[in-house]
């Protein structure tokens, strides 16, 4: 199913800020504890301290996938000059399995937004084959599009995003 204009990914600005339009072709299930992530869900940092369980679809175990988790609203959605922040990077995930079977290039760092309501986006790419992906070196100012181009990942096959704001208060007035 291709992404139409009413798709939450478009309305939420993920398509545009982070990704290009794409057609979903692989199932992607992200679960934090008991809570399954659906687009636009509000989750607090205390609930996402540990990495989620990620299960992907597909049919052929010979196909490998890469999962990227980024925050495009750093340090704050009104002033995202550090867009995007790389929270997690797992490669070589075989189809029908999950991130536990992949290669964690960049370890999961639990999001802790200080200001505003941030979007956290998880994107799944299909790899051409088993490939070496080099860790970026730093987490801020990551660019998912460029990363995908660099490793010939082409368009995403699945994506989901949720919202996250700090546990207590609003973080004070923005300067």
């Amino acid at each position, binding site marked *: 199913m291709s992404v139409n204009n*009413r798709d*939450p990914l478009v309305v939420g600005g993920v398509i545009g800020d982070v990704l290009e339009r794409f057609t979903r072709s692989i199932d992607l299930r992200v679960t934090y504890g008991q809570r399954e992530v659906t687009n636009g869900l509000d989750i607090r940092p205390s609930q996402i301290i540990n990495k989620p369980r990620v299960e992907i679809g597909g049919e052929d175990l010979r196909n490998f996938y890469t999962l990227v988790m980024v925050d495009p609203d750093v340090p704050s959605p009104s002033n995202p000059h550090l867009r995007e922040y790389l929270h997690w990077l797992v490669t070589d995930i075989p189809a029908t399995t999950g991130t536990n079977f992949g290669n964690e290039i960049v370890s999961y760092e639990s999001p802790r937004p200080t200001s505003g309501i941030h979007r956290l986006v998880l994107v799944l790419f299909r790899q051409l084959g088993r490939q070496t992906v080099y860790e970026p070196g730093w987490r801020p100012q990551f660019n998912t599009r460029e990363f995908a181009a660099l490793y010939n990942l082409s368009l995403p096959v699945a994506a989901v995003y949720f919202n996250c704001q700090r546990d207590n208060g609003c973080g004070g007035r923005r300067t």
Partner: protein
Amino acid sequence: MLSSAKHKINHSAFSVSSSSSSLPHSYSQAKNMTQVTMEEVWKDINLASLHQHRQLNIDHEPVLSNQNPNNSIFKDFLKKPLNQEPQPLPPSSSSSTLHRSLPPPPPETVLSLNPHSINTHFDESARFGCFGMKRGGQESDESRGDRRHKRMIKNRESAARSRARKQAYTNELELAISHLQKENARLKRQEEQLKMAEATQHQTKRKLQRSWTTPF
């Protein structure tokens, strides 16, 4: 002498804004931090020329010095309000422009005499006001309007993001509902079919029929 000086300050403060009490406090607090430099400057300032100065905020200076040429009395006057004053400006984002005009004048005055005294307890709005208000009335109007405009734009963007967030979640829910409804219908149909299949099987089982006979 002291009381009349105070009265004069309050009077001129009142003409600036409604909250007159905070003006001398914040002003004096800022003053206190630059006391050493200020005293030196006071000696040099030509009071007569200051009197002719039209700027409202700078009017406070000649008033003070006229009444208290002696620095010690001036110091005492300053110390008194300082005890009561923890923070001159409550951090309120919804303050009117009139209120905004109040905190900036004191730091502005201090600014003109000693640029190092910007670091005060004033909140972000006052500090921000300092930058655009070095000269006085006209520029402060512009920067005030500018700031308001920027704020409005930021607020609009934030509101738009909020609406998008809400809409995205709603769309997701609608998609989920439609998906679940279809699956529900499908499963119900499946159940029906299974039931029917079971029923016909049951019927056939009731009649014991010979299906196979041995040849002998």
